[in-house]
């Protein structure tokens, strides 16, 4: 591996770590506004990683993907999230199902689990970016954990978006992204999924007077 490649490897792993750290912020902070900001910064770093991979991987399609990611996840979705937060929020994650200190330790363990699971991938891959693959899978697990352990519907949406970021990061690091059309289709799907979730959160607020998912327990046998 020549010096050029090592710099690429280090920068990409650095980018992946920072992305993961922004995801861990979701487990640390309590305010919903902090979650939206963390997601924004995470998406910004993620689009930088895509641009980086595009530059070193000599694949110009990835620049388009980076710009699309920037537009969608740094501007459009956070704008909608902020609006949703203003109309529906004002609540904080005061009592998550798993308390914060424990959540952080679980996050550390999940990342170690991701390292264990992705060993075959890292050994098989010949790409310089393979060091960041466990971090991407770790981010996926952290996103899942956020969805499962938090009570506010808005937090669950941001957890889902962070999960999607983790998967996009995995695609970037594993395979230098997938074909442009499919990547764009994925973004479109994410946007639409997000919009639908947003609509349903408004419905929840209107019918249940709160976005605490603990209230969603009417449907039993």
């Amino acid at each position: 591996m020549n010096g050029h490649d090592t710099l690429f490897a280090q920068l990409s792993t650095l980018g992946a770590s920072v992305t993961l750290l922004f995801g861990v912020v979701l487990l640390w902070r309590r305010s919903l506004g902090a979650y939206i900001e963390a997601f924004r910064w995470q998406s910004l770093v993620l689009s930088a990683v895509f641009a980086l991979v595009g530059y070193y991987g000599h694949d110009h399609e990835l620049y388009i993907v980076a710009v699309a990611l920037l537009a969608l996840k740094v501007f459009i979705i956070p704008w909608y999230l902020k609006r949703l937060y203003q109309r529906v929020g004002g609540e904080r994650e005061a009592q998550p199902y798993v308390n914060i200190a424990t959540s952080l330790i679980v996050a550390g363990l999940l990342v170690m689990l991701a390292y264990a699971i992705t060993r075959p991938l890292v050994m098989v891959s010949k790409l310089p970016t393979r060091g960041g693959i466990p971090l991407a899978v770790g981010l996926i697990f952290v996103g899942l954990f956020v969805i499962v352990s938090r009570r506010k519907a808005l937090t669950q949406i941001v957890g889902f978006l962070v999960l999607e970021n983790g998967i996009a990061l995995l695609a970037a690091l594993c395979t230098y992204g997938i074909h442009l059309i499919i990547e764009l289709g994925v973004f479109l799907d994410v946007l639409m999924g997000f919009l639908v979730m947003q609509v349903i959160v408004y419905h929840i607020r209107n019918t249940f007077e709160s976005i605490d998912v603990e209230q969603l327990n009417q449907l039993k046998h």
Partner: protein
Amino acid sequence: MTGYLLEIGQALLALLLAPGLVGFIRWLKARLQGRRGAKPWQPYYDLRKLLGKEVVMSKNASWLFRFAPYVIFATAVAVTLLVPLVAAPLPFDAVGDLLVVVYLLLLGTFFLALAGLDPGTSFGGMGASREVTVAAIAEPTIALAIFGLAVGAGSTNLGRIVAQTLSNPGAVINPGHLLGFTALFIVMIAETGRLPVDNPSTHLELTMIHEAMILEYSGRYLALIEWAAALKLLIFFSLLSNLFLPWGVATTLTPGALGVSVVALVVKLAALAVIVALLETRIAKLRLFRVPELLGVSFVLALLSVTSSFLLR
């Protein structure tokens, strides 16, 4: 022979610089808050004053109360002998291991907590329990954060870690490196009793952690403890700067290299002091039950640093 002289010189340098460091941070904070503030060398005058004053002790205090300040001071000085402040290969290097450093620091904290409990005052007990809560999460994090570097260097010897980073400058932007730095920074704030964990200049006992334990101390005991606290701050600053950004540390024992290294150390300490002063002025003190959450974050960062160093060898 020169090596041992160097070691003693290093310890003396640390003893000399430490109160100045504390005074410098205090002066910077005052300036940032729009006050004139005391001169940066005020702590030296304070120490001289305290050393001359009479010791007043509670009737309920035992031998531990008189013994503890010496232990605390001694452990702090011992750590300065082991940490690579100005030069990397040192004669005490064989003992200069990461775990020894952590244990010595913890020994000091332990005796401080006991001394807080000894006179039987409620504030002392409160301070001791808070201090131990913070130390419980912070101490493993110190070990883990530096361990992340140790994995890369293949040894837990601090001198060798410094040498390793010097010989491989590109490793500085390794995620393991940066995560370890952040984790150690957060722990430094907690262990040395700085905002946002503990306010060093508070006079409200219910908000104290470190100060509450030493409320009963006076005279030369208080001088020793304050000096030890300043030394601890210096030690953490130099660990942060020399382990993660080791340029300037002398690898050969020539006067030229040593001179450069002393200057470099002073510059790095000043830089960190500026950062800490800015941080303290900007951030409010955390509520006590939020401190474990902050330390939990640093623990996770340290854990991530170890895992990524381990797997990117």
